[in-house]
């Protein structure tokens, strides 16, 4: 008998008739959707609760960069289950099926796995990822070896053990759900109570320690929650996939929010939804294993979040990038217009004295200002005309509108202040320079901006002309 066969046999779910045609599937769908069957209700409720608590605990694991810890716990629990079975069968044959005892074995072995990982990382020079890989595979290998022993035991009937590997939500009974509900309630309560403590632990462990928080004990508590969720999850999704319930909802939630409180709630919600969707789908299509469908449903939510998440979703970022490119183009054009007018008109040197709307700028002049292609200049001009910043045409030249002039003044001022900033504070880390910001004041402090303005006007007075590195040189003669 192979594992796969075991798993397929086990998936005649919920004791429902297997639908053979479309009508059957619809009927099945209605049965599941209306929660008519007691069994469906039980399994759905239990798995959803599990999904919620896994999502919540997973948030902290993700932020603590311990994503794979759940995987270690899950794999490490396998030899625990097998050993518990062997010991129980040895003590009193037939006892080995006691779920409580098997789960206790899983908990112990899961903790051992964590301890082993921590010990390897701490006392050797092996890095965390290698330590995780070693512990995970060694414990899993041991578990598989022990399973072989179990299968050859004379007392036999070790069939149910395989459900720990692939999971079998359908085998849940009301007792299990009560257990899961109680455990999930405990997990959620602890997360709520220690929200503040887990936050500081995940954000800044050293600071937390300096403040006197018992960092080690908090860590152990957090890992205990992971062990708890994992062991409960073994039953329904199996040890291979339980890590997905811990991490995928949390990773998905991060796309939607920048606040930890919301992230935790969204993660719990997505975890619950994914679990419920998985169980429902496997109830409608009984050949689907619940565990796999839960992971697939969660992945679907992850994909949706990644694309459409309002904080860091791909689309939002692509949109922001497009907008920023457009703005850069617009700013470049406005600046080119400004500088062309500025260099061809006699002024008193103050930007206020410059009438930007009077003087047309020829297309060729704009083309010569930057390394733009003619097509790009045309595109920029067309966009600026649509936005009402520029008027005119190729033959008469282009002129800034009143609005365009105001924008151009602002853009040029920001640009020159940033340049002044770079010249004055060239030694400073450049990470906070944001030339794209609408106003320099958004990024730099007002007193610093004032200082830059003073420096800029002083320099301008020295040069007796508005200085810009991009100023058109051929016309500077008129400034005498």
């Amino acid at each position: 008998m192979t594992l796969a066969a075991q798993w397929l046999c086990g998936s005649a779910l919920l004791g429902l008739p297997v639908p053979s045609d479309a009508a059957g599937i619809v009927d099945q769908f209605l049965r599941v959707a209306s929660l008519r069957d007691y069994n469906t209700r039980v399994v759905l409720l239990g798995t959803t609760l599990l999904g919620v608590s896994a999502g919540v605990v997973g948030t902290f694991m993700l932020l603590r960069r311990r994503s794979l810890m759940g995987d270690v716990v899950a794999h490490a629990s396998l030899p625990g289950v097998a050993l518990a079975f062997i010991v129980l069968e040895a003590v009193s044959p037939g006892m080995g099926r006691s779920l409580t005892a098997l789960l206790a074995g899983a908990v112990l072995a899961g903790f051992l796995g964590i301890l082993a990982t921590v010990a390897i990382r701490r006392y050797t020079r092996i890095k965390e990822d290698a330590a995780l890989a070693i512990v995970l595979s060694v414990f899993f290998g041991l578990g598989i070896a022990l399973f072989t022993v179990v299968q050859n035991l004379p007392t036999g009937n070790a069939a149910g053990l395989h459900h720990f590997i692939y999971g079998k939500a359908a085998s849940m009974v009301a007792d299990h759900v009560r257990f899961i509900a109680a455990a999930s309630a405990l997990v959620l309560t602890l997360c709520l109570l220690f929200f503040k403590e887990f936050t500081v632990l995940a954000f800044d462990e050293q600071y937390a320690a300096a403040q006197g928080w018992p960092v080690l004990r908090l860590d152990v508590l957090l890992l205990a929650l992971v062990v708890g969720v994992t062991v409960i999850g073994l039953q329904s999704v199996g040890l291979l996939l339980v890590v997905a319930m811990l991490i995928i909802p949390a990773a998905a939630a991060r796309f939607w929010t920048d606040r930890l409180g919301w992230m935790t709630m969204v993660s719990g919600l997505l975890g619950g939804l994914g679990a419920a969707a998985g169980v429902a789908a496997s109830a409608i299509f009984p050949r689907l294993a619940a565990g796999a469908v839960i992971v697939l449903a969660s992945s679907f939510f992850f994909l949706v979040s990644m694309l459409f998440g309002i904080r860091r979703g791909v689309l939002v970022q692509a949109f922001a990038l497009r907008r920023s490119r457009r703005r850069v183009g617009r700013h470049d054009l406005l600046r080119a217009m400004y500088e062309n007018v500025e260099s061809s008109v006699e002024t008193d040197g103050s930007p206020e004295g410059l009438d930007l709307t009077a003087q047309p700028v020829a297309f060729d002049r704009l083309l010569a200002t930057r390394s733009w292609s003619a097509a790009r200049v045309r595109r920029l001009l067309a966009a600026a005309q649509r936005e009402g910043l520029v008027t005119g045409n190729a033959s008469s030249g282009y002129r800034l509108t009143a609005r365009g002039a105001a924008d151009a003044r602002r853009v040029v001022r920001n640009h020159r202040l940033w340049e002044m900033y770079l010249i004055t504070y060239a030694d400073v880390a450049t990470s906070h320079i944001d030339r794209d910001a609408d106003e320099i004041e958004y990024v730099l402090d007002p007193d610093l901006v004032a200082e830059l303005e003073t420096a800029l006007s002083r320099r301008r007075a020295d040069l007796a002309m508005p200085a810009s590195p991009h100023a058109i040189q051929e016309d500077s003669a008129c400034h005498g």
Partner: protein
Amino acid sequence: MIQRSNPEPFTEHPASSPLTIHDMTVAYHRKPVLWDIDYNAPKGRLVAIVGPNGAGKSTLIKAVLDLIPRASGDVKVFGLSYRNQRSRVGYVPQRESVDWDFPVNALDVVAMGLYRKIGWCRPVTAKYRKIALEALDRVGMAGFARRQISQLSGGQQQRVFLARALVQDADLYLMDEPFTGVDAATERAIVAILRNLRDTGKTALVVHHDLQTVPEYFDHVMLLNMRLVATGPVQEVFTPENLRKTYGGKLALLDRVGHQMTLSGGGQ
């Protein structure tokens, strides 16, 4: 070899010194990185901790805060061990020590400085958020309270860290390179805050990299290179002679050993 300043007139009984380090040695992986540090911090003074990379400046602060074990020696904060005086010590870690992509805003980070006061398992209430906001205001960041921390500039992030320590209203502040990678406005803001702390009788030990600004910003200096080279008022101790001893040049035997140890990975 270790110079000490003359006892200053207002020096109190050592028991009330903000920070007393006695014979402290710290080792990483069995290699000592700090040897026999003996130090008495002057009350109400700004002290720069200065020394080359790998001199053990951060290690000194972390060892004082019990973040890394001491191989020997002891530390007293206002006459008691640090574990009994935590609320009186404000710690500003290096900015690079945390993940700024973490899903919290500036106010959340500052509120962390109040977590101990709030106590186990209690939420951050409006009352504490108000205190945190006031601390943000002190560092000129009140307008950024709701910003996600990754959207702050390096200098602004540093000021958030500073506010997190200020909110504690501590008596002794330990700051690890608060001036690194910040803009001029932030630098001025930090200096103003440090002076304000000093004027209210607080003490600050600040790991500082820019030798040029030491005399301008600080009253006292601690020159460190795995051992204490010199300590005392800036005008007495911050001399070319002492700086040579700290940074090498004509290396004393100890420096050479220290340098070797740094090269072999013993430094922090």
